[in-house]
């Protein structure tokens, strides 16, 4: 996770809308899975494959690896 990439946004689902010739893929910033079409954008701008991964990021990942980890 790159803390520097965060920016405040309204959380919600966004549809990837790339031109037909663009074949690159993006990955969930929590679990690493490919995001094929619909991306969950969290309030801090991080992109997840599901809302569950957003939750996992806050309840599991941040406490262990984030800046305020114990």
């Amino acid at each position: 996770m790159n803390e520097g990439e965060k920016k405040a946004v309204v959380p919600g689902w966004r549809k990837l809308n790339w031109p037909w010739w663009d074949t690159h893929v993006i990955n969930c910033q929590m679990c690493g899975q490919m995001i094929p079409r619909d991306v969950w954008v969290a309030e801090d701008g991080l992109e997840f494959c599901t809302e569950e991964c957003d939750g996992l990021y806050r309840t599991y990942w941040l406490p262990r690896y984030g800046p305020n980890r114990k």
Partner: protein
Amino acid sequence: MGLWRFDARATPRNARDLVSGMTGTPNGTDQVTLNVVYNRLVGICKEMGSTMMRAAYSPIFSESLDFSCVVFDRDGVMLAQSEFSPAQVGAIRFVVKWLIAEIGDDMLKPGDVVVHNDPYRGGVHMPEHVVIKAVYYEGEIFGYVANIAHMSEIGGLAPGGFAATATEVYQEGLRLPPVWLMRGGEYVQDIWRVIMTNHRAPRYSWGDLHAMLASLNVAERRLQEVLETYGAEGLSTICADLMAHAERWMRVEIRAMPDGEYYFEDSISNATDPPEEDWFRLRVVIDGDGLIADFTGSDPQGPHVMNCTYGVTASAVYNAVLQLVDNDIPHNDGVYRPITVIAPPGTVVNVIEPGASVAGNTETHPRLWAIVLGALAQAVPERAAAATGGSSSNFLFGGTHPDTDQYYVHYHLEGVGWGGRADADGNSNQVVPNGNCPNTPVEIFETRYPFVQTAYRLRRDSGGPGKHRGGLSTERIMEVRTDDITVSAVFNGMVKKPRGLFGAGGGATSELTVRRAGTDEFLTFREAFGTRSNSRFANIKLTHGDQVMIRTPGGGGYGLPWERDVELVRQDVEEDFVSVAVAGSDYGVVMMESDGEFTVDDRATAARRAEMLAAAGVGDSG
């Protein structure tokens, strides 16, 4: 298949867990119907496999069965799969769902088949091609049938689909994003021409792709027959109950493991001078009925072929967990839902473009599998096994056959020793746990390719010493019978021994050597040809009379070697599995040979074992 049998090993913390986990279904489907439908779906997958095996042109399909056949619902949720190759079990769960999401099911028409082999889209490596076909019932898509299979040649920098020295995906062969192979049952000729142009052995690709198409057609018909019995809504309801049942069963199994965080790390090595290493770090978190496999902290992806795709890493985790739980849990999407895999993108466990990854599926998967078991051995030591040889020992070759003037290629893999476990020795000469693939029989090998096998045998002393010995690996010597053949290889386990568990020793390391025609000595490929690595090289030219010797890695042992039953050690020596010298040095069993008979010196053995006990805690764990 006893869907409702319950293994006594799974001992939930209280009976309520067992009852709530195993009775009732959300939609009230009775147990008999669940069993019947599940076995019909699995039967479809198995018939797909039989079709593949009989229709294929390449031994990698017909002999090694390196493919998986799966049935999905309309959302790409996996309903059933056959147990051909565990390397693909996790990947295919994602690859079809993502493919459908990416292209949109509204883009599909009856008779369409879509193909891709993109490792960044859920595939396991470039040779594995996934084909899917929508199955229609009463004018609507009910679901999909899919097949993921290892094609023997895909172009790229080396024959055989294994560009062993690749540093980027672009060197690994022809990469296809999701594209239509068939539209309305007709060839999409442009894409076929692209494939046939880029593969070195297009005749094989043609035949093997048609074997895949045939398997889809068989599955389509069979699924429609099931739909005739139950209707679309009825079958969907039963499948939802099947998945709920599998999920609850897996949750009961996980709940039976002690809560906690279990850390394990290990590496894979490139046999360069000095060796290069990539490290994998895993934290398994068991919390109630859920399990997280978190690879955060693993090394960044490297400029080599050992990187794993997300599909490989997920498959390795699922494969390891499934080894520890009841064999009869239905293999559908539900069984995987309690397991969360965290694989940070850009690392060795989740390669991103343009990283190479062809050997992640064959070499790194078994290492990840062993790492998961290493972590979970702390939670359930009685169920875990020591490390396997952990290398498919990939040996690839190609050229123009002297008898036919046709270009041929072959992807050859070997068996290894598996790790010892709490109640048994490791299996000998068995393909890596991610493979399930028989290798090509000598008769087929010699009929189709210009090699003659001069030796193929178990390797004495290759199993890691332990109370339960690691399985033995093999030694094969092949002699070239053509003037020009190009060979490549990707091996693991050449530098570090496969680990033993609980004080046992590691298995033997792998070796790959060559004896040039007219010489007496087997040399490493670095010594003979100046390759950078002895375990990863590409496009070496061999000629008539050259011999290649493949020695695969053995399995790690389980438990203290000097606790192994003396009679079992004597039998191992008698069978030539263990030498007299190793029986004494590693097992503390002092033996004598007279006229081919082996006897144990009881007094010397007791003294030797007492010495070893005094030095307890000292053991080679690889």
